[in-house]
């Protein structure tokens, strides 16, 4: 039973009113003409609202009409029935039309609901826009910024409160720009107009930065909807949140990138590796061959890929052996073997190999990295040779070689030491050699461990031998230090040194004795000269001229002899360190004048010119010695310069020194003799001895006196032109 609605009441009231009006007019006023066209009002209303039920209203009203007419009026005319029938027919038709329309509408509503339901179940947000940009449909509530909702809460953009969400009813009928974006004009980047214009779908990606800084990506597809004429009437927007997809894509992309980089990197490594990287399958067939392998094997990849790796090994079983070991151990590390290059030259290699397996763990082959170690092998051979040589040297060395560890463990003794002390390798040195319980007090191990080299002498009381020990740190291959000791038996040398010392002592004594003896001897030699000269001087005035000359000659010779003895005596005293200097301030011109005055007669006797060039200089020196220096040099010059020659005496100041020079115009001294002329009893020309006399002691005395003063003496000469004798003396003591 349908509820009584406003519409029902209205229809009911109109129908009742029409019935009452008919009753009133027919019964009480007796009018035959009622107005059945008024009946159409409720019939039409009922027809519109209640569709086929309008027939009941029509029947009711027709009944009322017929009854009123029958009871109030004269007779029932055909006219009455006709009108009633028209009423019913109208009601029926209206009801029918109305029914049909209602059915269509219901169908539309059903379809729309279905559509709505479908839209709301798909994850995308669908919206429909017509030519005026009016939103016709929105499948789900949406953020104002166009971001999808989930259970009424913005999925990501949480800053926006739910009231800010755009509900479907809010936008339906509004323009999209107003509804979604709150704008008055169409968005500048809107793709919808182009879809209307071109009739082609457009896909637009949008991205948003969310409050948390992450990106949100949207993929919106705008699809045209055509009418039957082919015009675009609507655009359907299909909006998808592809953030997750994007993120996945990004991840995949970056993973791919990384993978690619890694692969490229590995490729680069493999390609550019100096090491050979070779893949060999289970049958021993070469499957991969890099540049490194090409480089030292000489084969190109084309030449070997697909061929058995047996071809590389001079030993035919080696390939099998390597494969077996890799299979057994899963890998191979630094395995050394020999392979043959393309040119058949053998190469030492070090191979590391690993097993390649498929995902089920089945071995597929081996990857082998090998390195040309020919140089290393050669080096090792050399090192071994060196070591053998070294051992040989150690063994054949007359010195003892001894190596002891930081912990006093004897690590090595060479044959010499083993013969001397017994083989103690592997023992603790202080225990086996010295019977101690702790390191010897003299032990240098600590110092050597501090990387110091120590040299010392050790006397073995037991062996009565003295050793010169050189102890030095020895770096072991593992980085630890040991102490290397070289024992040199210096007992013999020690004895010899002792003897030498004794000899030296004796020699020194002898020398002293000699000097003492010489002093006495020279005095004794002088003694006979006393009566010779004395008697000669007594005799001289008593003799006639001729005899007097003889005695004068005797006296002169005796004086020469005396002079010679004096010089020898002086040298002996210098050697005996008995000569001491008495320093005083001296005027050089005065000293020189004294000497010149004394020697002038001798020079004049030989017609020689004695020239001096002496500035006013003073010096702190021993007068007697300075006189002797000048006297010896000048008298030498006079003696060796021939008749009519020239002798120049010059003195000058040279910084802190006084430099004296005595130059003569004598025969000169050959260069080879120059360095030796200051030596005792050395004479440049023995042939001159007789002519010039003297023993060459004068220059020795000059040298010694100059040396005592701290000066230097030397000579230059040009044979044939003359000689120059120089000396320097410090001005101050």
């Amino acid at each position, binding site marked *: 039973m349908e509820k009584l609605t406003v519409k029902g009441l209205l229809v009911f009231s109109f129908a009742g009113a029409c019935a009452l009006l008919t009753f009133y007019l027919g019964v009480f006023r007796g009018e035959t003409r009622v107005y059945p066209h008024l009946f159409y009002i409720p019939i039409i209303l009922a027809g519109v609202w209640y569709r086929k039920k309008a027939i009941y209203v029509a029947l009711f009203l027709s009944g009322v009409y017929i009854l009123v007419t029958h009871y109030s009026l004269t007779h029932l005319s055909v006219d009455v029935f006709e009108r009633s029938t028209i009423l019913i027919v109208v009601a029926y038709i209206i009801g029918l039309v109305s029914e049909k329309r209602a059915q269509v509408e219901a169908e539309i509503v059903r379809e729309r609901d279905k559509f709505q339901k479908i839209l709301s179940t798909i994850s995308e947000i669908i919206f429909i826009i017509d030519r005026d940009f009016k939103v016709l449909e929105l499948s789900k509530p949406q953020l104002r910024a166009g971001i999808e909702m989930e259970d009424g809460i913005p999925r990501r953009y949480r800053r926006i409160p739910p009231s800010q969400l755009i509900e479907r009813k809010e936008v339906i009928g509004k323009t999209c720009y107003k509804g979604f974006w709150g704008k008055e004009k169409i968005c500048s980047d809107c793709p919808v107009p182009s879809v209307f214009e071109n009739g082609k779908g457009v896909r637009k990606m949008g991205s948003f930065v969310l409050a948390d800084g992450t990106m949100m990506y949207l993929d919106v597809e705008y699809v045209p909807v055509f009418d039957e004429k082919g015009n675009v009437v609507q655009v359907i927007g299909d909006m998808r949140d592809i953030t997750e997809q994007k993120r996945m894509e990004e991840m995949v992309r970056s993973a791919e990138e990384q993978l690619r980089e890694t692969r490229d990197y590995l490729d680069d490594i493999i390609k550019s590796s100096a090491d050979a990287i070779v893949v060999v399958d289970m049958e021993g067939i070469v499957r991969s061959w890099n540049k490194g392998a090409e480089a030292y094997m000489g084969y190109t990849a084309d030449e070997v890929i697909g061929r058995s790796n047996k071809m590389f090994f001079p030993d035919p079983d080696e390939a099998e052996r390597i494969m077996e070991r890799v299979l057994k151990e899963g890998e191979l590390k630094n395995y050394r073997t020999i392979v043959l290059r393309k040119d058949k030259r053998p190469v030492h290699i070090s191979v590391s190999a690993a097993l390649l397996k498929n995902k089920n763990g089945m071995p597929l082959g081996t990857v082998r990295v090998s390195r040309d170690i020919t140089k290393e092998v050669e080096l090792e051979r050399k090192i071994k040779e060196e070591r053998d040589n070294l051992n040989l040297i150690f063994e054949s060395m007359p010195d003892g070689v001894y190596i002891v560890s930081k912990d006093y463990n004897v690590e090595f003794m060479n044959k010499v030491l083993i013969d001397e002390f017994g083989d103690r390798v592997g023992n603790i040195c202080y225990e086996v050699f010295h019977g101690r319980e702790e390191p010897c007090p003299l032990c240098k191990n600590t110092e050597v461990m501090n990387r110091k080299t120590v040299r010392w002498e050790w006397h073995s009381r037991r062996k009565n031998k003295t050793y010169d020990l050189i102890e030095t740190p020895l770096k072991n291959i593992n980085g630890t230090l040991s102490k290397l000791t070289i024992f040199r038996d210096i007992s013999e040398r020690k004895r010899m040194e002792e003897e030498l010392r004794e000899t030296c002592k004796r020699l020194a004594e002898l020398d002293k004795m000699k000097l003492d003896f010489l002093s006495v001897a020279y*005095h*004794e030699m*002088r003694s006979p000269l*006393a009566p010779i000269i*004395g*008697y000669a*001087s007594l005799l001289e005035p008593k003799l006639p001229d001729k005899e007097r000359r003889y005695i004068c000659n005797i006296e002169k010779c005796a004086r020469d002899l005396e002079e010679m003895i004096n010089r020898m005596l002086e040298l002996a005293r210098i050697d005996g360190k008995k000569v001491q200097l008495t320093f005083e301030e001296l005027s050089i011109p005065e000293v020189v004048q004294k000497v010149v005055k004394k020697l002038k007669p001798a020079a004049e006797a030989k017609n020689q010119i004695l020239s001096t060039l002496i500035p006013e200089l003073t010096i702190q020196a021993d007068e007697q010695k300075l006189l002797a220096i000048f006297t010896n040099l000048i008298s030498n010059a006079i003696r060796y310069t021939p008749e009519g020659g020239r002798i120049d005496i010059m003195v000058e100041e040279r910084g802190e020194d006084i430099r004296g020079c005595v130059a003569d115009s004598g025969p000169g001294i050959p260069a080879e003799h120059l360095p030796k002329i200051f030596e005792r009893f050395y004479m440049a020309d023995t042939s001159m001895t007789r002519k010039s006399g003297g023993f060459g002691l004068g220059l020795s005395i000059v040298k010694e006196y100059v040396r005592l003063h701290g000066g230097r003496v030397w000579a230059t000469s040009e044979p044939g032109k003359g000689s120059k004798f120089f000396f320097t003396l410090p001005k101050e003591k």
Partner: protein
Amino acid sequence: MKKRILIVEDAPYMREMLVEMLEQEKGSYEVVGFAVNGKEAVEKYKELKPDLVTMDLVMEVMDGIQAIGEIKKYDQNALILVVSALGTPEYRDAAMRAGADGYLWKPFTVKNLTDVLTKLLEHHET
């Protein structure tokens, strides 16, 4: 007045030579005695009291240096001339320290001797 001289010298020919040399200066010197060693020299000096002693250094029994010391101990004014073949500064210093007044280094001529004596005596008198 002749100067009285004591000659201390172990070599006979040297003694003779000295006498001869002194006689060359006629009337100046008179050799009053001889001694052949230091000990004798000291004794002779005490006995003869000469004006001057010529003293050899190298002698037996007692050497010249010792003798000089002894004589000077006995007579501080004694005038002693050393006449010796030893002439190095060490000996000279030793003799001078012992009290010698002059030093004549052998060998020497008549003139050498008389010059030294003259100088010595003059110096001594002043």
